């Protein structure tokens, strides 16, 4: 498994494609089945945000290693309207009550590392990582 693989997110079907891609890579890297599901769920949420807010974008997946540990890096990019107040969007409960929440705090709980960079009018980049927990 080398380099990165990329999925164009432009319709709902791409959401399924993206999470299946993430699950496959997760399995190759050696993630526990529970973590494969967690990764797929996080991908689903973020891909959905792209569709809802930016209409389209890309998601790339990469196997990463650092010292003894291995993991997966997922980068979601779009050129949508951006998020005006990220710190507010990261608060639990923000806008979820309206039913179309960004779900960012939840996704952050699912992943080990999570970062959102957004410029209003330019777009949003979500970078997230998860490391293989030692179960061997």
């Amino acid at each position, binding site marked *: 498994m080398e380099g990165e693989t990329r999925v164009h997110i432009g319709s709902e079907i791409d959401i399924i494609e993206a999470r299946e891609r993430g699950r496959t890579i997760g399995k190759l890297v050696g993630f526990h089945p*529970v973590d494969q599901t967690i990764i797929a769920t996080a991908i689903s949420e973020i891909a959905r945000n792209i569709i809802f807010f930016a209409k389209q974008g890309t998601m790339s997946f990469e196997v990463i290693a650092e010292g003894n540990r291995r993991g997966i890096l997922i980068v979601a990019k779009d050129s949508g309207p951006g998020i005006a107040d990220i710190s507010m969007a990261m608060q639990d409960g923000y806008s979820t009550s309206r039913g179309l929440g960004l779900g960012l705090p939840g996704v952050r709980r699912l992943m080990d590392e999570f970062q959102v960079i957004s410029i209003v009018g330019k777009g949003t980049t979500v970078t997230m990582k998860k490391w293989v927990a*030692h*179960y*061997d």
Partner: protein
Amino acid sequence: MSKRDEPRVSESEEVVPNEPRSELLRQLVAHLRDNRTQLRQEWARRITQASLLTAMSQDEIFAEATTIYENYVDALESGTFEALQAYARNLSERIIPRGVETDEVVGIVLLLRDVLARSLFAKYQQDFALLNRILDAYEPAANKIANTVAVSFVQERERTIRQQQEAIRELSTPVLQVRERLLILPIIGVIDPQRARQLTEQLLRGIRTNRAKVVVIDITGVAAMDSTVANHLVQTVEACRLLGAKVIVTGLSPVIAQTLVTIGVDLAKMNTVGDLQGGIEEAEKSLGYKVVPGER
């Protein structure tokens, strides 16, 4: 034992062009092979003298020393370390349970390096320039070998420790089936997020395999609970419910009850019963069992 710092006076007098490194290594390997019996014995003697590998018998030490020696020389000759690494892993796996420590493993490899360097010194001391070149060829490979063995050992040890931790965790969160469709999970001790997670996974699997409808989580044995763990508990209860199982939590201490209220846990979502006995009775009731006094 390094001769690197020795002034290298002879070098300028050298007339013959230096042999290629591979030629030096070939000579070196030939020497180590020709004298293997004596060198192995010397090494084993030094290991005992330095009180290393005390958990092993003399015969065992000699047997291992023989194999390590062959692998060592092979690695020197081929410049590849995979076989040595595999052997080091295998050795580590066998000796870790017997209590052999990292410093002992590093110690024996350094001793071998020393024994071999002394032997090379004895052989080539007449020709200092050659000796220097031999040692220059030998040292980087010897260092790499020492490093490979030590790292393999440490990795193996970490793996063993992780496995043991796993096993202890599994043991410390037994999911018990006390009746058909009724599981009990008695939690004892400290719950950290990792354990909370493991416990939830085990419980969810248990619900599925035992087709459980009611789960009693007894936390009498848990002294304290911070808000993170309390939230995990609530998540566990919710996850069980998603699988169709009802959860009854028993044995909440006054302190934990306070924590739960302070952090604003929605108690409406939690069925709580004072003690385990009461919890089981409640569970049996919701499973449709009737408790009747036995006949005398």
